[in-house]
């Protein structure tokens, strides 16, 4: 899985010095288990944005996602002294599993309406003259894909998020959501078949649209 690569991206703003923030995650975890407060702070800073975004993807509500991020770290720190890294599994996978379980338990307790995907904030692009057209195409394409993911249903949506955003393996997804890995494989296959249809329809429309090319 590529979780470690993703984490190294979020760590750019905090790492690079000789303090705890520059340590590997495993070293930070070991220090935290001994009660090192600085290591705990570095560990939270390193993962908070990613956990928050994962909660956002699952819950679609920023306020709830922030609450669930805090709950994730609270539960994780309560269990951290007993945490032992298993072979083939990472701290991040363990943390994301807690995050997903927090979100799911909240969603079970409360009637939850899955809100539509929010519009992304304007971004600076390299070619200002292409910006309006590129933006329109990308926005349309992105909305179609996200709508298709929504249309998959809660079970399939969660598997897709854990695979494509959290980068979990089938086994890790299975352990997180409590189903056999064969079920995860089956749900992913179903989801991909549906998303492939959306992609192919989009490509056909993009090809028919004069003067526009697919991003």
């Amino acid at each position, binding site marked *: 899985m590529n979780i470690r690569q993703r984490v190294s991206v979020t760590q750019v703003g905090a790492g690079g010095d000789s303090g705890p923030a520059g340590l590997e995650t495993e070293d930070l975890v070991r220090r935290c288990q001994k009660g090192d407060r600085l290591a*705990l702070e570095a560990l939270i800073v390193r993962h908070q944005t990613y956990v928050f975004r994962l909660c956002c993807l699952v819950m679609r509500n920023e306020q709830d996602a922030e609450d669930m991020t*805090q709950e994730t*770290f609270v539960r994780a720190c309560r269990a951290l002294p007993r945490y032992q890294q298993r072979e083939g599994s990472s701290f991040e996978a363990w943390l994301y599993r807690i995050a997903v379980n927090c979100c799911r338990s909240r969603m079970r307790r409360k009637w939850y309406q899955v809100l539509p995907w929010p519009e992304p904030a304007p971004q600076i692009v390299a070619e200002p003259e292409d910006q309006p057209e590129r933006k329109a195409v990308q926005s349309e*394409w992105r909305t179609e*894909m996200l709508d298709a993911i929504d249309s998959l249903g809660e079970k399939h949506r969660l598997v897709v998020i854990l695979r494509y955003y959290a980068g979990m*393996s089938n086994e890790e997804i299975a352990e997180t959501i409590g189903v056999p890995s064969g079920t995860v494989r089956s749900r*992913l*296959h179903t989801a*991909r078949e549906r998303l*492939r249809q959306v992609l192919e329809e989009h490509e056909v429309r993009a090809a028919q649209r004069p003067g526009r090319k697919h991003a």
Partner: protein
Amino acid sequence: MNCSLVDTLIDDYTDGELSPREQGRLEAHLASCPRCMDELRRRTVLDHAVRQAIGAAVQHRYLAPAAGDRFHRAARDQLRRGIWLQRARSIGQLVGGLAMALLVLAGLVVMLDRLSLPAGLNPVTLLPAKHLIPSGRQMVEVSPEGPWDPEGLQPPVPGAGTRPGLTLSAGGSFVEPEPIVPGEAFTLTLLIHNNLPKTLKSAEFDLEISGPAGYFQFPLSVAGPLPASGISLVRISAASLAETCQAKYMLPPSAIFRLPGTYKVRITLFGPGAEPRQ
């Protein structure tokens, strides 16, 4: 590998879930099959598109500036509590383990104390319990003088059966239980044959037992009548030896066979026709 198999494996291939062997076989097929290679390209494009769409949906989401501090404060308290609980759990496990070990030790001591260890064994060796109590014929065997008769038949006492008077019948003495358990009650049975044509009122005999526990000699008498030309059954219980045993050897009769091993029993009859008691 055929194309239909590739269709089933391609998900696992792009997910990195295939074994190196399966991966090698799949890649060999992909290199020679344009259809499957096109399928792989489409799958890769799809994966990239989904990842990009999901990433873009939350790319602009950031936590509130104060959220990090709040997380840290809440997590710090829980971590401290978790460490304390973990230490308490470790101490509890240690104490529980020690208590269990003490209980086992106490149980062993009580068990060993209840066992009557044979004096010949060294209790320090802490042999398994089955070795502490000998079983079967290795316990106490009572044999007549001379070779042991497996049928339990005892030859007549030398000198007694060759002349008229009192003799022990063939197979005329046996011990119950057989073998005797050290320290437990026993009974010695005699079949005395009166060869004389007259009934006897009484008879006297000596009982001698020698073995690992020592030598014991008991002068005994039988209150008749012993029918003429008949056989009389005489039972000697441990209780009947108690008084003599206590007076003569300062031991209870259970101490006669207190040690495992082979014992010899000799009966010497005194009466008309037999040797007089010395």
